């Protein structure tokens, strides 16, 4: 069902009445309609967040059209999965067929009231997928969800909700993709990931919005006992990105391996704020974040490792490295480490930032590789630990080509 977008109201024309009416007309349950209205009121009443490193002064949301009823989610579906009890559908459809399951998880990882934009997300989300993998079920084939947007003047508000029951395993790839837009567009994505005890998830999230898109996003994973999360993020697109991400290692013995590649060029401003929270005992987290900037781009890594009081025997390691290809490009790194337990096994942090290494360049050139090609190879090599985790050859090549084109 595609709503006629010509009839949609602008954000400035929205009201709690209109939101409630739209929800009811779509057959949404009362609890959800109530949540949307509450979130909308929070959005209207709260002050814009003060973000030192995300500058929204150039963004003019007034004329942006609200995405009520919009459908920008494509789901690749496999009949055989249904036989295993796997649910993979749009979140809107899941509300009809699996209401209790959705209600149990929706909005419990990403807090709708974190700030003004998370409230707007909770009030307006329409697109996105629901994915449920039953107990002890292993899916070999990666599942893929693609979110797009309608173009300049539109908002897309997708919500992906991924639930792995005990012992389940899955590879999930989400892509946010669009052409360049002539003007401004708004993306407010949120993704919630739940890993039951002993579950194993490889999560790949790729942001390749076109120029003109302003993204304010949230992602959070709740990891159960002895569960294991492999998280790879690739951020190449958008005019502005502000993504708050968190992994909560709640269960004892849970584990995350978290890598990210961010590449900013032209006038892009890309911020990632990853938090790693160790809550359970004997939890282990590794973060390896890579950033490349050129032209007038500005990238920010605003990360934090927090080890809670009960998290005994923790292992935590954060690496973040930035490469500057041209002198005007900027990157900021604000890593934090807060330890509230006195029983940490290992916790460490390494950070570098600088231009392409002249000794590497000379070494490669001494083998006959021209300077430009050597820089290409160094950048691709820099991102390799992230690209290496992309499960499909086709996707890896597509991202490789996008990165090559940016260099």
């Amino acid at each position, binding site marked *: 069902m595609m709503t006629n977008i010509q009839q949609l109201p602008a954000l400035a024309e929205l009201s709690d009445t209109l939101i409630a009416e739209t929800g009811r007309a779509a057959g949404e349950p009362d609890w959800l309609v109530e949540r949307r209205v509450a979130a909308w009121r929070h959005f209207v009443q709260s002050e814009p967040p003060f973000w030192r490193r995300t500058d929204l002064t150039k963004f003019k949301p007034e004329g942006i059209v609200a995405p009520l009823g919009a459908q920008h989610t494509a789901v690749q579906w496999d009949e055989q999965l249904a036989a295993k009890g796997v649910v993979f559908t749009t979140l809107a459809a899941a509300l009809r067929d699996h209401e209790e399951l959705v209600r149990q998880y929706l909005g419990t990882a990403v807090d709708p009231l974190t700030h003004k934009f998370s409230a707007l997300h909770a009030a307006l989300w329409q697109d996105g997928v629901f994915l449920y993998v039953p107990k002890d079920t292993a899916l070999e084939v990666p599942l893929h969800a693609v979110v797009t947007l309608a173009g300049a003047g539109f908002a897309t508000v997708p919500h992906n909700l991924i639930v792995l029951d005990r012992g389940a395993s899955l590879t999930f790839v989400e892509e946010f993709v669009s052409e360049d837009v002539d003007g401004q567009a708004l993306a407010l994505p949120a993704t919630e990931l739940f890993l039951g005890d002993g579950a194993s998830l490889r999560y790949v999230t790729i942001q390749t919005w076109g120029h003109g898109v302003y993204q304010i996003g949230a992602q959070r994973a709740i990891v159960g006992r002895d569960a294991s999360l492999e998280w790879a993020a690739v951020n190449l697109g958008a005019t502005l990105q502000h993504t708050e991400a968190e992994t909560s290692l709640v269960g004892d013995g849970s584990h995350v391996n978290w890598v990210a590649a961010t590449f900013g060029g032209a006038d892009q401003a890309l911020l990632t704020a990853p938090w790693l929270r160790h809550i359970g005992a004997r939890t282990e987290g590794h973060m390896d974040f890579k950033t490349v900037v050129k032209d007038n781009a500005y990238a920010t890594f605003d990360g934090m490792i927090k080890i809670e009081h009960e998290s005994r025997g923790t292992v935590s390691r954060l690496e973040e490295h930035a490469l500057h290809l041209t002198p005007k490009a900027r990157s900021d790194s604000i890593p934090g480490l807060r330890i509230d337990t006195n029983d940490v096994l290992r916790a460490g942090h390494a950070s570098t930032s600088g231009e392409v*290494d*002249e*000794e*590497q360049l*000379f*070494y*490669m*050139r*001494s*083998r*006959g*590789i*021209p*300077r430009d*090609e050597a820089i290409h*190879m*160094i950048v*691709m*090599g*820099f*991102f*390799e*630990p992230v690209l290496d985790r992309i499960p499909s050859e086709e996707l890896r090549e597509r991202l490789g080509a996008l990165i090559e084109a940016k260099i």
Partner: protein
Amino acid sequence: MKSELVIKDLHVGIEDKEILKGVNLTVRPGTIHAIMGPNGSGKSTLAYTIAGHPGYTVTRGEIWYKGQNILELEPDERAKLGLFLAFQYPVAIPGVTVANFLRAAINAQRAEEGKDPKETAIPMAQFRKELREKMAQLGIDEAFARRYLNEGFSGGEKKRVEILQMAMLRPSMAVMDETDSGLDIDALKVVAQGVNSLAEQNPEMGVLVITHYQRLLNYIKPHFVSVVMDGRVVREGGPELALELEEKGYDFIREEVVRS
């Protein structure tokens, strides 16, 4: 094309400090020429200058190879001309595998202006076959092809991979900068054997072996030996000069130089 490497009155400095003070040297094709000298004599500066390291400033002199003053060429253009430098301290390139690096280097050297690089590129099957053969000859485990270049390699592994690169790129003039440093005797033998068999396979190849110690020259037999001290070539001779140095040390030459 056969060519000598001719170095004429070469003066080189780093940040205002003059290191080479007028080096004259000729390396003929098909010969192995050893440069010996104590630490700080300028041996490595000579190697880097031949390869075109941007940190060294040539204040006077010329280096001729294949009809060109190579000081006017970029490092990659020099490599394309057939020059190769085996580094004393090979550099790690994270995320770039040995195989991919070598293929890029070979294809860069095969590239011709105005031609589609795909046309001139080495066929994949041929590349794989050659790489496997050369790795086996040098006693390098096949798994190294997929490892990131020099990342986490031991000193001996790095030097072997330098020789592997040399074997794959088939230079017409190879400069080996202290290839023996940091190697135990077994690793040294493997590396020397690699160089010798390359020299046999490419009888026109010239080799400039730079070393502090005579030890390496037991395994790579030079035709000529030049001794460098304080930025100048102070003695030239045949292989017997290396043995004399081993016996008497560098001091006897230093005294000779002072007397004259």
